C-alpha cells in the first residue's frame, strides 16, 4: 500500500530557534562543518483506499501546515519498493 508523506518546513524567512540550538550544539560533537540546521515535520498519511493527492493537499493546506509561516511538500511513498539502507 502506498502512503502519502507531507513534509512541513518553516518558510526560509522565519527564524528557527530550535534549528539554531541544534546547530550551536554541533561543535560539542566535534562537528564544525555545518553552517545551518532547520527543523521541520514529516507526517505520514494512509488512506483507506487509493491515496488521494488532492485530499492530501487540502489536509496539508488547512491543517498540517500554517501557510503564514510554513511551506509543505507532498510525496507518495511506495512501500513495496526496497527499504532504504539506514
Amino acid at each position: 500500500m502506498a502512503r502519502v508523506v507531507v513534509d512541513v518546513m518553516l518558510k526560509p524567512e522565519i527564524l528557527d530557534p530550535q534549528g539554531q540550538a541544534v546547530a550551536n550544539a554541533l561543535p560539542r560533537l566535534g562537528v564544525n562543518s555545518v553552517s545551518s540546521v532547520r527543523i521541520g515535520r514529516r507526517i505520514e498519511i494512509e488512506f483507506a483506499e487509493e491515496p488521494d493527492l488532492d485530499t492530501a493537499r487540502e489536509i496539508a493546506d488547512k491543517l498540517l501546515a500554517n501557510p503564514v509561516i510554513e511551506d509543505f511538500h507532498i510525496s507518495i511513498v511506495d512501500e513495496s519498493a526496497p527499504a532504504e539502507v539506514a
Partner: protein
Amino acid sequence: MRIGVVTFPGSLDDGDAARAARIAGAEVVRLWHGDAGLHGVDAVVLPGGFSYGDALRCGAIARFAPVMETLADAARGGLPVLGICNGFQILCEAHLLPGALTRNQHLHFRNRDQFLRVESASTAWTNAFTAGQEILIPVKNGEGCYVADEHTLDQLEADGRVVARYTRGNPNGSQRDIAAITNEAGNVVGIMPHPEHAVEALTGPSLDGLGFFTSVLRALAGATAGGQLAGGQDR
C-alpha cells in the same frame, strides 16, 4: 451583560478568565468546545492553556472545534472576542487575526510580570485605557513570538491595529515588540500576556488586567444604548 468563556480540552486559564469577567461585573457563561451554541452571550473570551495538548501547532486543532465555527461567524458579525495566550494562537489559526505565534526566540518558557504599552484604546477590549498608558500584567508562554510578513506588519501599524507592545524588554522575540493586535473592526483582540491574572491585589502584580473586561462591558453598553447590539442578529 453575558460574557462567555470557552473551555477546550487542555484550557488552563478558563477559571481565571471567568473570575475576571465576574469581578468586572459581567454575568459569566461557561461555553464548551464541543457545543456549537454560544447561548446568547454578548462577548466571548478564548482563554490560555494548551488546547488539545498543543498537538501539531498551538491552536491548530482548537480552530476546528464546533464552537469555533459558530464563533468565527459571530466574530465577523461584530461579536467582541478576546483571545488570551492560547486564545490568541487560536484566533490566528482561525484567520480571525493575521500572523502567527511561534516558538520563543530564546526557546525558554517565559513566566514573569511584564510591562506593556497600550497602543490603541479604541478596541472593544481596551477602551478603558488611554493610548500610551503603561500597564503591568503577567506573561507566561513558550510560543508567544508574534510573526507576520513585513507587509502585514506595516498594515497593522498603519491601521492602528497594534493594540499593545512589550516595554522594558521583549519576553519572546515578537516582531516589533507586538503583544496584542486587533482585527479591522476592533472587536476581535488577541493578546499574549494574561490580563485575567491581574485583577486582584492578592494574586496579581496590579489590577491593570481588569480594564480589558470593563472595556468590553462599556463597549456593549454603548452599543445597546445606540440600539446596535454588537454581535449581530444571528446568534
